[in-house]
């Protein structure tokens, strides 16, 4: 058991109640803005103290409300990359790296020089953080965080402040750096794309509570909970009524659906990702619906058709790659193997 987190903390109008474990890999924490992701990281780092619970890394207890253990952030030795990078604004890049080191002056200088080379910051040593671009600031902050040899690292929305192209390039760069890092990595984000690329495991937090933890790819395939489906980007979710072991009625879409997986008693919703909807010219398949097109959004590489059952009901987002054809078909089918049954 590498990282163990179980924390509860009451705030005015908000309760944080998070529990997960992470085993020597990269874990993502996915949640909407303001759901308590950053607060969870602050508790792990020791910046905020939970009311109760236990936080331990590799058997070393950082926080235990029963045993009255609460190590200071300095004693925990966890690297924390802040959303705004939190470089010291009055110090140059070089000084930012140097001031967190202890020891002899020459030794410090040598390590700073090495780190500056590793992170391709040559030429920027004397610049102040405000004179750097967003990407350079991030590299400097990563360099400063890793120069102290932390036991684990946490990244708080590492790419939210960057724009399109730069984001992709830096994501790749950071991924390379993280691969070389031996300890645990926690990445917090509200972006499913980022976490899908970054993390092997995923924890989903909804309104301060950890909903589920598991393999990232598995959660994207089968989120299990309606909130998890929404956070992983599923746009089409309908309330569902169980009609049989393999049959439900999707009341928001006004249609019966047969399913591949057995429908358990606790299923309340059904969802399907817009990419998996198939066009049909005629009623030749199960789970078929005659549609009217309400609207069409022209995205760079796909069309988003917003369609509705001719019998009424809620709209469905149907995403179609541009090469597949331009006109929507009169019917669509929701393939049963792609249906997500949700609690």
């Amino acid at each position, binding site marked *: 058991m590498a990282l163990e987190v179980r924390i509860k903390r009451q705030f005015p109008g908000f309760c944080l109640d998070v529990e997960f474990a992470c085993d020597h890999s990269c874990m993502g924490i996915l949640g909407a803005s303001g759901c308590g992701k950053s607060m969870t990281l602050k508790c792990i780092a020791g910046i905020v103290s939970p009311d109760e619970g236990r936080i331990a890394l590799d058997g070393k207890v950082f926080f235990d409300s029963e045993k009255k253990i609460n190590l200071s952030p300095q004693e925990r030795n*966890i690297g924390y990359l802040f959303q705004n990078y939190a470089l010291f604004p009055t110090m140059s890049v070089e000084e930012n790296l140097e001031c967190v080191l202890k020891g002899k002056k020459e030794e410090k200088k040598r390590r700073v020089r090495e780190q500056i080379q590793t992170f391709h910051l040559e030429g920027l040593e004397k610049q102040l953080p405000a004179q750097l671009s967003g990407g350079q600031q991030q590299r400097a902050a990563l360099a400063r965080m890793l120069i102290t040899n932390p036991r684990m690292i946490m990244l708080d929305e590492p790419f939210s402040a960057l724009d399109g192209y730069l984001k992709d390039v830096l994501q790749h760069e950071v991924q390379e750096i993280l691969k070389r890092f031996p300890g645990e990595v926690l990445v917090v984000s509200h972006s499913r794309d980022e976490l899908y690329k970054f993390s092997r495991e995923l924890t989903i937090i909804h309104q301060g509570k950890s909903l589920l933890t598991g393999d990232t790819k598995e959660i994207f395939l089968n989120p299990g909970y309606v909130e998890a489906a929404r956070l992983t980007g599923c746009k089409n979710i309908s309330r569902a009524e169980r009609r049989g072991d393999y049959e439900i009625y999707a009341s928001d879409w006004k249609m019966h659906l047969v399913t591949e997986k057995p429908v358990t008693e606790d299923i309340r919703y059904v969802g399907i990702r817009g990419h998996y909807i198939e066009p049909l010219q005629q009623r030749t398949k199960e789970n078929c619906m005659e549609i009217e097109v309400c609207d069409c959004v022209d995205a760079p590489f796909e069309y988003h058709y917003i369609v509705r059952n001719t019998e009424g009901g809620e709209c469905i987002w149907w995403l179609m790659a541009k090469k597949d054809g331009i006109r929507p078909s009169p019917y669509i089918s929701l393939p049963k193997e792609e249906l997500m049954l949700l609690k």
Partner: protein
Amino acid sequence: MLSILETIDWSPLFISLKTGAVATILAFFLGIGAARGIMKLNNTAKAVLDGILTLPLVLPPTVAGFFLLLIFSLRRPFGKFLLTEFDIKMVQTWPGCVIAAFVIAFPLMYRNARAAFEQVDVNIIYAGRTLGMTERRIFWKVVVPVAGPGLASGTVLAFARAIGEYGATSMLAGNILGKTRTVSVAIASEVASGNWDTAAFWVCVIVIISFLIVAFINGISGKKIKNVNRWI
């Protein structure tokens, strides 16, 4: 007019500068300490203590002088105690000048320091902690430089106020030439005894010093924050 320069006793200027310097040093450290201490309190205690510490800024200096006399008068218990036990006398002495100037100048330092500290992005303090820096190191290496312009303008304002102090000083320290007569006390007593030329000379001195101080503050706050669009 120039003949004044030959006959003038320069001691009020030096007493003023010396008083201002010592009072400012006291106000600098105690103001920073008070600002830090008060930021950690809960809201009620904060409001009450902040009010008390700011009072000398808004009350007439004579009220401060009254309270100082109440404390340090040799006829009252604490003043008597200081004199008999430690041989310290505040009334009609130079330390009295310093105490009076300090009490009046302190709120300026305290308020500026607190405003400057409250502007510091708390994330850089958190970052320092997760990077293993000690609290003391974070304070002096990270927070103070970031709050620097605010602390500097607080210090200079406190100094300006301290050398110009009149009300509390004249009540506690009095007007002894060469001992407690500061420039502002000198102006009042020269006018009272009809020496308008000497008074005018001291007025010029104090106006020049004050102007230099204000110009200096504008200099530091002008280059305060880069990369911020300001409200013009």
